[in-house]
């Protein structure tokens, strides 16, 4: 299985174009923010010092959540390719179990998601500091690494389930570009959750990945928000957090961090079980 993981990683990173395309959604979000979204939001907020670094942290948190999804999806593309090119035949004629073959793809995709997200996190911190923000405290960094691991796991499980339905490259390519676009909305990045209708808000709150974005925002924005909202009325702070998806409301109460973590871990377990079921059914 280690040989397979190794091979899948090599195949993914050797294809520069596919690495680029798996980052495309992230690059688009970043450019859109850089070019005009950032200005729009900054103008809507009171002109207090530190608004810009706070919003930078906000967008970067969302971006990181998306990065792990799109890169995991890109890495899983190898599996679809192998299936459509019948490459799977060669593995199947070797003394490795079907489960190990699937696990090889899953583990490789997880590692790709993890590596790329960690890299993106480092770049995000560089960007924030370059624009005059503060570097995240060590405790925050540790929390971010934990969240990145968790969101990569969750994405691996979800995409693994989705991928079990695809065996043609075309279908998967289309699906992944749609998902890549959709995920920007589903995690409340293109438009903050507060600007969306109630029904869509419910979908966002159910979507596991938006909880990863939520938790990352909480970690990355804690410092900057303290500065911006120093001395502001609590209602105003709460209003901002609701609007931007720094907290989610459930029955008029803030959803707790453990609940969000539980949703992430629970959906990872659920989708992993479903994917395993799908693959074992398929190999029969």
């Amino acid at each position: 299985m280690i040989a397979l993981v190794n091979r899948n990683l090599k195949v993914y990173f050797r294809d520069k174009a596919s690495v680029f395309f798996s980052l495309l959604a992230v690059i688009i979000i970043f450019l859109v923010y850089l070019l005009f979204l950032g200005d729009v939001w900054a103008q809507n907020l009171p002109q207090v010092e530190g608004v810009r670094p706070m919003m930078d942290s906000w967008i970067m948190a969302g971006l990181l959540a998306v990065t792990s999804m799109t890169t995991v999806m890109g890495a899983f593309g190898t599996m679809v390719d192998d299936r459509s090119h019948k490459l799977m035949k060669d593995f199947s004629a070797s003394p490795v179990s079907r489960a190990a073959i699937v696990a090889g793809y899953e583990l490789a995709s997880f590692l790709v998601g993890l590596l790329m997200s960690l890299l993106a996190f480092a770049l995000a911190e560089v960007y924030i500091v370059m624009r005059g923000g503060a570097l995240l405290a060590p405790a925050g960094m540790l929390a971010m690494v934990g969240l990145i691991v968790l969101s990569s796991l969750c994405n691996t499980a979800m995409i693994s389930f989705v991928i079990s339905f695809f065996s043609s490259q075309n279908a998967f390519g289309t699906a992944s570009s749609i998902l890549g676009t959709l995920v920007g909305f589903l995690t409340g990045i293109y438009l903050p959750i507060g600007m969306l209708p109630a029904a869509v808000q419910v979908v966002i709150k159910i979507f596991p990945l938006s909880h990863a974005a939520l938790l990352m925002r909480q970690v990355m924005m804690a410092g900057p928000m303290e500065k911006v909202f120093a001395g502001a009325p609590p209602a105003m702070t709460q209003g901002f957090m609701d609007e931007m998806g720094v907290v989610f409301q459930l029955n008029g109460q803030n959803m707790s961090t453990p609940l969000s973590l539980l949703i992430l871990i629970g959906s990872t377990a659920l989708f992993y079980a479903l994917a395993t079921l799908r693959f074992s059914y398929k190999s029969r």
Partner: protein
Amino acid sequence: MDKIIEVAGLKKAYGSVQAVRGLDFYVERGKLFAFLGPNGAGKSTTIDILCTLLKPDAGVVTVDGHRLGAEDSAIRASIGVVFQDHLLDPLLTVEENIRVRGGLYPASRGSLNEAVARAASTADVKDFLKRPYGKLSGGQKRRADIARALINTPKVLFLDEPTTGLDPQTRKSVWESIQALQRETGLTVFLTTHYMEEAAEADYVVVIDNGNIAARGTPSALKEEYASDLLRLVPADEAALLAVLDAAKVAYARVANQVVIKIPTTLQALPLLDAVKPYLSGFEVSNGTMDDAFIGITGKEIRE
């Protein structure tokens, strides 16, 4: 006799299409065994079953003493397969490809290095070991495929139409390497082909058509049995010639300007020739070929 592969009553259907309808055959250890048949005869289905990729509907198969269906993993460890399609990673180099696939077999890292070097030199891929597989020519790719199949020093090497789609010169050189490999290492080679000249050089041939075994034997036995020698006469005086043949009750066919007569052995052409000599402008005696045998067996020309 040491049988490395034994197949009895093998059946496989895809829905209502019967691909393989009850095959019985065996392969002797250390021999070059050819499975000959037109496209769609069931060759690839059979090879996929023997390589544990497809589950048969019925039948008993043992490969190197391991029972198919019960000891698939042991079978997979003791075989090497060259598939019809090129199944290595185009972006990785030949060496990386062989090494990665070698990692799928139980072996230590040190012996993997050795195995890679050995497979590379046996399959003669050393010259392009560091080049990406996707950039190789058809013949080089095929050699790399063979190197990959040899990585676990298999007991049986399966090759599914290894020379199909190669230009004649490359085809010849790949074919010669396969023969050399079998001769030098004593490896059992099981290959499917629809090229007569390849089947003619095998130790044993099974001809399959429509999922059934149509004939089997050594190439010379098959030729003996199914192909007849031919006598072609070019008449100078056609009417007189045919009159002589009719009088002697010799069956003949007329092809273009020739009169073709089937004869059991080439020597029997002599008395006939003596009889018709005055009316001839020329003649030709030819031995039966595998092509003739194949047509004799299946009643049709090979379908490309």
